[in-house]
Each structure stands twice: as structure tokens, then as C-alpha cells.
């Protein structure tokens, strides 16, 4: 790894942790209804919303009611995005007269954005009208993020409360998170991005005369520059770990990510809320060390993956150095000059760990081991920082699994944060952990067995298998990035991946809320001599081990068939 790469990683971690501390404190105040200043500023708006919507903000919900509210809210989101796509040509703000979108692609995109996946089978600049981007996709960027945070908060309450039948009010949680967290942060970030060159307008696309005219026959002397309200969407795309690009090239596009500085801010935006939520968790359960322990496990795993990705991408493609190409800049196929290989590989690590799925480089063209890291990051279950909210509730599920394993080893009843972990809880935990590997492996198996699945492959050999494995890993874990060579905008992939994304999201959320409900109902036990302390280095290691072990056991055979074979072939081919 180069000196630049080490410096970049160091500064990134320092700024991230410095920003997470105050935000974590603010978030704890917010979800417990104590955030004074913002409530005074927005309190009138909030109260008006509840009045208009017939919500009694003091009325609490049990877990089932909370889950039904979340499901209904997100189903509405999917229907709305579907309708906007199907009717966009008859609706305003479509200066390019982009056509209505096919039912299968519209279904896929609607589910994708409602589940915080933001997998994109379409090419943004030639498909989506400005209205669809704003009123459909930007809205879901906010609301799917708010959903993740609300579920995480409900689970925190499950640990913090005792002998309680309820876990909060979903409408209040969704509204407060949107109004007082996501909107202000997005506004701040959008204005900064616009100042750096991220476009923000509602103009028609510009056609320009290029500098070279006579000789460039391919472009016949003109170039079309796409326009649109990009900065507003870019900001929440990162902060909400959504990742759906306004343009096909996503955060590699100069109009989405014009400078290395915007790149740094975008990387920071991805991990900011997931990191802060760990500390919020510590505050809500009344022991800040618990939050730091979870954050420490995440940070350590992140550093290992980042160093691995940056090192292998710096080495470049041996087949090209055999041709006399200078690879001192690393593997640059599918990477932008302004970012170079280090800033690209760090971005790739962050975006795949965080279930964001934005890309500033094309993962399909990574070295086999670089691609392996991005796949593996998603296979960990998007719990290392992870998606906003979903990362924390996923990690807490693993924490319960870790104390259960430790309990088995020493022969005591496991407990976590004063809650006895019983059969029902472990059932919910197992369900939440197993649903995604099942979707990934079954989906991949189906796709490699049917002609419609194999037809999408772009690269020959083991890499082609990796493209399909990546697609289902990304969809089931709600990441959204791709080995983008795969032609996935077909009825087969649109439908199958759409189903996988929905189950990968709500197949985890429902058991997590059930867990939250049952934890809240339990009594709180006092810690005894037999209690495993869950705030020290031993527990951090145990938690990391559990995450890695589950990821490894589920996926090693599939990884061996894809990137591992490809790596061995590349080494023997040079």
C-alpha cells in the first residue's frame, strides 16, 4: 500500500469518528424526544403533520403493529415509484421526452429503491425523467433510509426497556428521522456538492460542439451533456446509504463526483450515520461502552478490508505489465484519473461494506482479489457499518448470536444487556441471519441453470460466474452495486432480483422487530459473576469472529468457483 493510501485511510477514520460522536449524541436525544433546538424549529411542522395524518404521537405500538406500519409505508413507496415510471411521458419535468418504462424494469427499480438497495438495471440519463428522479427516487432515498433507522431504534428500545408491551411509534420515528436528521444533513451536503460542480438544474440536455470536429467521426463533432437535479439526489444517495446514481456511471460521473474532495465527502457521508448510530445505541441502552464495542468491531473489520482492497488494486493487472504498460498507478481499467487506484479502492470497500452500492469505479474490472473483497464485504451481511439502521440492527443480531455461542461454550444461559436470550430470540436471530445467504445461493443457482440467466454474462470463464454471484449477493443484501457487465435489464433478472431484494429487506426487518418486541417484554436481569461482559476487547473479538465465521461458512464454496479461480488463472497466465 502506498503512503498516500495509508494517509487517506487514517484521515478518513479520524474525521469519521470525530463527526460520529456529536451526531450519535444528537440522534439519541432525537429518538428519545429530547432534541431541544431542532424540535423548537420544526416542532410546528411536525405537529401539523401528525394532525393532518391522524397520528397520535403519544400512542405506542407493539412489534406487530410497528412491522405492519413499516411494511405498508414501504409498499406505498414501491407503488408510487412504479406508477411514476410507467406514466412519466405524460407527466411534467421530462424535457427529453423519455419514454415510459417497461413493467419488469419499473417493478425492479420500484422494489430496488423502496428496499434501500438501489440496484439499477437502467441507464439513468437515458431512462428517467426529472420528475421520476425527484418525486420517485429521491423520495425513496429518504424514506428507505428513515425506515432502516426506525427499525434500528425500535430494536434499541427492545434492549433498553423492560416489561414493556410496545417499542415506539413508527410514524413518529419515520417523521422525526426524516425531518430532523436526513433533511438537514442532505441540504448541507447538497449545497456543498453543488459548490464543487455537481449539477443542479431542470434544464434540457445541452448539445455542444466539441473542440475536435473534422477528425472525430464517431461523435460527428458534437456531444450531449446530460443535465438534471443531481446534487439534491447525490447528497441523500450517500447519507442514506442508497447508492442509486443519477447517471449510469454513478459516482464515477464527473457531474456526480467532480473532485477528490467531493469523493472524500461522499465516502464520509456513507459511514457517517451508521457510525453515529452505534454510539446512539450505547446511550439508549444506558452504557456508552456497549456502543463503542460495536463500533470497534466494525472499525477493525473495515480497516482490514480497506487495506486488502487498496493493496491489491495498487498492484494492477499482470497481463498489462507484460505488454510494457507502466502500472505504477495501479489497476486503472474502470477507474477515474482524479481518484486514482487508492481513492477508488477505498470507496469500493466503504460502499460494499455499507450496503450503499454507489460506485466511483467499475468493480467488474477490479483485479480478481479486489473483486473478491467487494463480494466478501457484502457477504458479511452488510453489518460492518452497513446500511443506515440496517447495519446496526444486523450487527446487534450477530451480537446476540455471539453471546449465544459463548453461552454454549461455557454452559450458561446467554444474556445480552441484561436480557436473557431464549429459544424464541435465537429463532428470530437465525431467521434474520439465514435469509440472505439462502436468497443469494438459491438465486445464483437458478440463474446459472437457466438460459435467460446465463445470457446476461459479459465476461468469459470464472468471471462470468462472479457477475451472477455478485448480482444476487448485492440484491439480497440490499447493496445495489454490480459487476455491471451483466446485462440485467431483462424480464428474468428484473423479476428475480426484484423478489430477492424485497425478501432480503423485509425478511430481515420482520424477525428483527419480533426480536425487539420480545426483548422489550422481558425483565431486566442484574449482571452476575456468570455474565459475559459485552463491552471489552474479548467481546469485540468474539463479535468479529462470529460475523466472519458465518460469512465464511456460507460463501466460501461459491467464492472458490468465482474470484479465487480467476486469481489463480491470472497468476498462471502471465
Amino acid at each position, binding site marked *: 500500500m502506498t503512503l498516500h493510501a495509508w494517509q487517506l485511510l487514517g484521515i478518513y477514520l479520524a474525521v469519521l469518528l470525530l463527526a460520529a460522536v456529536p451526531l450519535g449524541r444528537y440522534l439519541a436525544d432525537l429518538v428519545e424526544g429530547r432534541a431541544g433546538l431542532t424540535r423548537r424549529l420544526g416542532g410546528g411542522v411536525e405537529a401539523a403533520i401528525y394532525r393532518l395524518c391522524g397520528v397520535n404521537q403519544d400512542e405506542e405500538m407493539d412489534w406487530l403493529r410497528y412491522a405492519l406500519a413499516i411494511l405498508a409505508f414501504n409498499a406505498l413507496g414501491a407503488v408510487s415509484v412504479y406508477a411514476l415510471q410507467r406514466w412519466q411521458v405524460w407527466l411534467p419535468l421530462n424535457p427529453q421526452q423519455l419514454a415510459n418504462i417497461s413493467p419488469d424494469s419499473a417493478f425492479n427499480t420500484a422494489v430496488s429503491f423502496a428496499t434501500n438497495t438501489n440496484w439499477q438495471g437502467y441507464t439513468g440519463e437515458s431512462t428517467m425523467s426529472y420528475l421520476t428522479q425527484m418525486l420517485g427516487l429521491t423520495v425513496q432515498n429518504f424514506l428507505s433510509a428513515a425506515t432502516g433507522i426506525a427499525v434500528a431504534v425500535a430494536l434499541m428500545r427492545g434492549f433498553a426497556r423492560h416489561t414493556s408491551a410496545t417499542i415506539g411509534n413508527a410514524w413518529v420515528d419515520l417523521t422525526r428521522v426524516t425531518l430532523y436528521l436526513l433533511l438537514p444533513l442532505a441540504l448541507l451536503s447538497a449545497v456543498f456538492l453543488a459548490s464543487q460542480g455537481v449539477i443542479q438544474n431542470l434544464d434540457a440536455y445541452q448539445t455542444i460542439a466539441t473542440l475536435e470536429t473534422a477528425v472525430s467521426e464517431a461523435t460527428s463533432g458534437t456531444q450531449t451533456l446530460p443535465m438534471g437535479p443531481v446534487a439534491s439526489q447525490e447528497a441523500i444517495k450517500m447519507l442514506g446509504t442508497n447508492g442509486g446514481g443519477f447517471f449510469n456511471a454513478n459516482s464515477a460521473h464527473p457531474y456526480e463526483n467532480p473532485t477528490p474532495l467531493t469523493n472524500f465527502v461522499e465516502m464520509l457521508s456513507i459511514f457517517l450515520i451508521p457510525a453515529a448510530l452505534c454510539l446512539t445505541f450505547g446511550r439508549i441502552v444506558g452504557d456508552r461502552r456497549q456502543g463503542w464495542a460495536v463500533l470497534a468491531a466494525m472499525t477493525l473489520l473495515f480497516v482490514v478490508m480497506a487495506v486488502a482492497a487498496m493493496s491489491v488494486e495498487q498492484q494492477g493487472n499482470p497481463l498489462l505489465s507484460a505488454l510494457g504498460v507502466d502500472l505504477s498507478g495501479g489497476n486503472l481499467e*474502470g477507474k477515474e484519473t482524479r481518484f486514482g487506484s487508492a481513492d477508488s479502492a477505498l470507496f469500493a470497500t466503504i460502499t460494499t461494506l455499507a450496503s450503499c452500492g454507489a460506485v466511483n469505479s467499475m468493480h467488474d474490472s477490479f483485479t480478481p482479489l479486489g473483486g473478491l473483497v467487494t463480494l466478501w464485504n457484502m457477504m458479511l451481511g452488510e453489518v460492518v457499518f452497513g446500511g443506515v439502521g440496517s447495519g446496526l440492527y444486523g450487527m446487534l443480531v450477530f451480537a446476540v448470536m455471539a453471546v449465544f455461542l459463548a453461552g454454549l461454550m461455557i454452559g450458561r444461559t446467554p444474556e445480552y444487556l441484561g436480557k436473557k436470550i431464549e429459544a424464541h430470540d435465537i429463532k428470530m436471530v437465525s431467521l434474520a441471519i439465514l435469509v440472505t445467504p439462502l436468497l443469494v445461493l438459491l438465486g445464483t443457482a437458478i440463474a446459472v441453470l437457466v438460459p435467460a440467466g446465463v445470457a446476461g454474462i459479459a465476461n468469459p470463464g470464472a468471471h462470468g460466474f*462472479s457477475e451472477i454471484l455478485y448480482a444476487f449477493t448485492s440484491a439480497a443484501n440490499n447493496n445495489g452495486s454490480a459487476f455491471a457487465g451483466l446485462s440485467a435489464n431483462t424480464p428474468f433478472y428484473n423479476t428475480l432480483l426484484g423478489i430477492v431484494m424485497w425478501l432480503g429487506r423485509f425478511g430481515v426487518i420482520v424477525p428483527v422487530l419480533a426480536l425487539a418486541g420480545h426483548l422489550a417484554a422481558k425483565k431486566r436481569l442484574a449482571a452476575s459473576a456468570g455474565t459475559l461482559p459485552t463491552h471489552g476487547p474479548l467481546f469485540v473479538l468474539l463479535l468479529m469472529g462470529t460475523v466472519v465465521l458465518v460469512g465464511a461458512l456460507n460463501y466460501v464454496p461459491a467464492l472458490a468457483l468465482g474470484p479465487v479461480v480467476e486469481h489463480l488463472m491470472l497468476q498462471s497466465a502471465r
Partner: protein
Amino acid sequence: MNTLIRPAVSIFVLLSLLTGALYPLAVTGIARVLFPEQARGSLIFEEGRPVGSTLIGQSFTDPNDFWGRPSATAGGPYNGAASGGSNLGPLNPTLVEAVQGRIAALKAANPDHHLPIPGDLVQASASGLDPHISPAAAAYQVARVASRRGLDPKQVEALVQAHTQGSDFGLFGAPRVNVLALNRALDLLAPVEPSTP
């Protein structure tokens, strides 16, 4: 049921208007007032007509000009309406053939030196619209451009220097040269006669 559906629909509609209409329009308004040029694409105007953007690369194939990154956009290089990379895997024979072709073209156009070929000149960018090349990639082309335009190589080197940007704050990203800006400056310094049609 009414206690579930009514709040779901009404909260969804209100938050949609707030985040999907009010918020993007507010950002549009703020950006238009505070950063009007950036908000509209950092366009370069000549006699009132847009001739490019400082952020978006263009296709350069004339030996009189500096060349940019290879672009794998659909429908021809630097197609602004279809950004994207090649998505070729490292072992894909198509990638190796494409790189061999680019090396041959570079060697044919720059016959007088035998430096190793800068990686960014033969590997396609992620967006297909990359406006930059590395300083090494610019240096590789200085001798050719200078002789084609009848300029002293030192003069061209100085121009490249003036258009080289370091990494941001010395910490983020990589040093780079904006190809469109460099070629526009070259055209001012030593215009090329439009001899070839």
C-alpha cells in the same frame, strides 16, 4: 385498518412532497443563486455557444492534440448520453486486445521515444467521460504535440505544467491534467491550420 392505512398514506404523501419536491427545488434555487455556473454544468462558452464543460472530457484523436483516457461509452467514445466503463474483467481477451491496439496507436503516433506507456492512456475510465490524464500521460505526448505544432517542447512542457493540478490538499486523489483545457490553450498558442477535411 383505518388506523393503519390513513396514517400510512397521508404521512407518505406529505413526506414525499417535502423530500421529493420542496427539498430538490430548494437546492436548485440555492445553487442557482450561489453557484450559478457549477449548477448548470461548469460550461465553457465561446461566442455565447457552449463548447464543452471543464468537468466532462471530449474525444481527441488528432495527433496535433493531447489525447485523453480511452472511453468505453456505448455508441462511440465520450458519449455524454451514455456514461459508463468497459466492465471488462482482468482476464478477458477483449481487454488485452483493446490495450494492445491502444499501445500500437500510441507507438505509431509517438515513434521517437521508448518510455513505458502510462497506464491511464491504455485503460478505459470508469465514466467514459474522464476529463483528466496523469502528468506522466501528458509528458509522454509532449514531443509529438510540439513537433506537430512547430513549437519548442519546452514551451509545451510549460503549458502542461500550468495545467497540472496536484492532489486535493496534497491528501485526496491523484495529480492530473485537464485535457480539454490543455488543448484549448494549445489552440490559442499555435492554431492548427484546418488542412485536413
